[in-house]
């Protein structure tokens, strides 16, 4: 492939690729996303490739495609057969030959591999009919299934880089910014700053040298949507960045990817190389006179480096310590030059906005929150995975319609949203619309998009302790109140969960939390008390049980619980006895077992394994 030298050439290439792809009669799209990979989807892909070869189907237009995340991780590994959109789940290597012979060759649906609707018990063959997908609006993530992320041609075939050619040929920088402003797009990385405004501020700052940065650090310890986007469709991020660079007048940009995401790194590096080879990056892009080069920077593992000023300092080769803003990055950013930094998902929205117009984009969502948002729906919920929903959808819709409710018939307690510095929202607010303002007013934040569902077995004090500990380790440690304040909050929370809570602890926590929020420099410190403050706000009774009655209602805090066997229910099956790592269970076959409280390490292994619900936690 030689460089594409003009917009006409790009369009011609697109036609050629589409023409070529018409030979594809059937595609087998195998999810190789973050959830399915550990379940062996790489081997499964190879099995399909081998089988297609063996049955000599390559020439007959059968294509095997390893793709990015399809979203429904709970049912993985997933295989979707196009163009029908036939959805097979829980695929194993052994299933490949059968799928090829039965479905691909003979056109029969294999019942066993279909998704079963838990409510009606019916089998659902097509992806689009599955309740998990029905209430979603997969603007960004929907394309993952359609392309091989290693192939720029696949991306071009579905309309890729059209927005770039449009921008470079027809519109001025001001018009691009206007369009983004009109769309109402707000940053998906946490704070929700209006993207168009950010670009305008940077554009208006004088200076020849400007930079753009894509923040793919994704340090939120319960989220993986940026990873999935970068792995599943790296070119859309690059396309967004080219448009942004053009708008503000930058000729150099960086994608900052955390090192824990080796696949995302590889895909991004490869995508940049391809785009350079095709002339979509580099000098004189599509004969427009516009130059842009992109570089990859690996993050060496620090949550705080997701914060923009820390991230830039990290690119400069220093430690990731946030710095005083103002000056803001749009004024003095990377190497003190005006810089626009946006999140992966923010960038991925840009090509859509340019192609279909800001007005179209603004028609989705609520008054102040536009478009869609990807959440990683995890925790105590049936349908874990990546979901993309229009802004303004209720939590109920996400947890129950899409998420399929809580496993094992347990009671829903609430969700934790917005990452470590987000907040816990209780069940009674389940009809809260998910948009920037509503979440903030509930004490949480949109954050990057982690959405962790919690049930009756989740202890809220423990959750607050968990996040406080996380943040205390991840704080850079510069601000005294962030470092010491978080340590002290953790100390108090530890006391409470260990049964050493005292009268006055709750008030002190609240007072300290508010001071930490007020007196810290960066977003990490300022939002770090949110988990404590929201759990205090909505679950104060749990704190009180721990402090006054020395009880953990959820049965989580080890020091406050004991495990015992319910003699009524125990059948003497020996399962817990055999699996107890501390040898604390005694008894014999068909005899009621007993747990020795002295030996018990409270690991919960018996509780997990007992089929008869005979282990009691008190």
């Amino acid at each position, binding site marked *: 492939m030689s460089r594409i030298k003009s917009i006409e050439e790009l369009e011609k290439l697109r036609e050629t690729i589409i023409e070529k792809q018409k030979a594809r009669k059937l595609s087998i799209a195998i999810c190789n996303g973050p959830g399915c990979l550990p379940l062996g989807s790489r081997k499964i892909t190879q099995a399909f490739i081998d089988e297609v070869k063996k049955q000599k189907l390559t020439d007959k237009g059968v294509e095997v495609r390893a793709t990015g995340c399809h979203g429904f991780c709970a049912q993985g590994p997933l295989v979707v057969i196009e163009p029908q959109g036939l959805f097979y789940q829980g695929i194993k290597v052994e299933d490949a030959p059968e799928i090829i012979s039965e479905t691909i060759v003979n056109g029969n649906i294999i019942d066993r591999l279909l998704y079963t609707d838990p409510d009606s018990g019916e089998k659902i063959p097509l992806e689009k009919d599955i309740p998990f997908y029905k209430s979603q609006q997969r603007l960004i993530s929907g394309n993952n299934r359609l392309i091989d992320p290693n192939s720029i041609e696949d991306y071009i075939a579905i309309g890729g880089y059209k927005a770039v050619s449009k921008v470079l040929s027809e519109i001025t920088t001001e018009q691009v910014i206007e369009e983004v402003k009109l769309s109402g797009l707000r940053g998906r990385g946490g704070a929700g700053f209006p993207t168009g405004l950010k670009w305008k501020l940077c554009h208006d700052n004088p200076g020849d040298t400007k930079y753009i940065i894509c923040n793919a650090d994704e340090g939120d310890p319960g989220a993986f949507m940026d990873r999935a986007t970068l792995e599943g469709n790296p070119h859309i991020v690059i396309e967004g960045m080219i448009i942004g660079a053009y708008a503000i007048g930058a000729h150099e940009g960086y994608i900052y990817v955390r090192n824990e995401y080796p696949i995302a790194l590889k895909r991004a590096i490869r995508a940049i190389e391809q785009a350079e080879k095709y002339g979509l990056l580099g000098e004189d892009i599509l004969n427009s006179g516009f130059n842009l080069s992109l570089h990859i920077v690996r993050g060496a593992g*620090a949550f*705080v480096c997701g914060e923009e000023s820390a991230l830039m300092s990290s690119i400069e080769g220093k*430690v990731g310590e946030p710095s*005083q803003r*103002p*000056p803001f990055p749009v004024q003095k950013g990377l190497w003190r030059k005006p810089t626009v930094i946006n999140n992966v998902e923010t960038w991925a929205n840009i090509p859509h906005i340019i192609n279909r117009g800001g007005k179209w984009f603004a028609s989705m969502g609520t008054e102040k929150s536009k478009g869609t948002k990807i959440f990683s729906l995890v925790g105590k919920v049936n349908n874990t995975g990546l979901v993309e929903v229009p802004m303004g959808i209720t939590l109920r819709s996400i947890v129950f319609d899409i998420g399929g409710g809580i496993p094992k018939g347990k009671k829903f307690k609430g969700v934790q949203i917005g990452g470590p510095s987000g907040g816990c929202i209780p069940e009674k607010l389940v009809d809260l619309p998910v948009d920037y303002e509503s979440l903030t007013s509930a004490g949480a934040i949109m954050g990057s998009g982690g959405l962790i569902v919690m049930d009756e077995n989740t202890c809220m004090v423990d959750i607050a302790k968990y996040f406080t500990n996380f943040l*205390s*380790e*991840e*704080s*850079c*440690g*510069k*601000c*005294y*109140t962030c*470092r*010491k*304040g978080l*340590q*002290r909050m953790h*100390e108090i929370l530890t006391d409470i969960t260990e049964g050493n809570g005292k009268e*006055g602890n709750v008030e*002190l926590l609240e*007072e*300290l939390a508010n*001071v930490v929020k*007020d*007196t*810290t*420099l960066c977003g990490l410190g300022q939002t770090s008390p949110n988990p404590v403050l929201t759990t205090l706000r909505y679950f104060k009774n749990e704190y009180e049980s721990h402090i006054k009655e020395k009880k953990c209602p959820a049965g989580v805090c080890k020091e406050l619980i004991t495990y015992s066997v319910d003699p009524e229910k125990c059948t003497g099956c020996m399962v817990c006895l055999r699996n107890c790592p501390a040898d604390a269970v005694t008894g014999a076959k068909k005899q009621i077992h007993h747990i020795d409280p002295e030996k018990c390490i409270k690991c919960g292994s018996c509780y997990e394994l007992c089929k008869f619900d005979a282990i009691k936690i008190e």
Partner: protein
Amino acid sequence: MVKLIINGMEVQAEEGWTLLEAIRWVGFDVPTLCYHEGLTPYGACRLCVVEIGKEPRSKLVSSCTYPVEEGLIVRTHSKRVVNARKMIVELMLASSPQSKTVQDLASQLGVQQIRFKVEHEDCLLCGLCVRMCAEQMMAKAIDFAFRGGDRKITTPFDMKSEECRRCGACMYICPACQLRCDGPQAEQDICNACLQITPECLKTYDDVMCYLTTCGACLKQPETKQKETKNNKS
């Protein structure tokens, strides 16, 4: 010139000044700990916070690092600010009670209780010594290392540093060991509170040019030092 309003008063400040400089220039004061006129402001201790902007959208910022801005409304002693400072000093008091600087601040701000478990952590990580070493002594022998709760100030690998000239400037400027406190419990005749700490440096250097005539930590025998710290902990 930049015009801003400090405690209701219109103030003309020079472009590029920090809020702290403007505040002190007109004669108000805010307490500071990690600030030193001869060194680059760092913003670590957060004691110098002031409230900026109009309520309810006002916020607290560290005045030693925040630049003056046209029309900015600044309040140096609002209730929110004073309460925050008190909490900061209470935190410091609980972790570094041997520091006279901290004890003095506590008295100044009227902090009369410690609601946290008292520990002897000594170093406040204000970074004065780090900046002193790098900016005034041009040595760059010590710096911060690690992060979060593990953060500390040290030489590379905690070993004797070739860059260090044993000038003692770091100890000279340290608010945790520079001025020894006379003891938190006044009723005791002999306090010896300062003997509770063993400056980190002594593990590595016993030939440092120490200006601390009253410290005496280096004169003590290693065994007695250890015993004492143990006793104090129990």
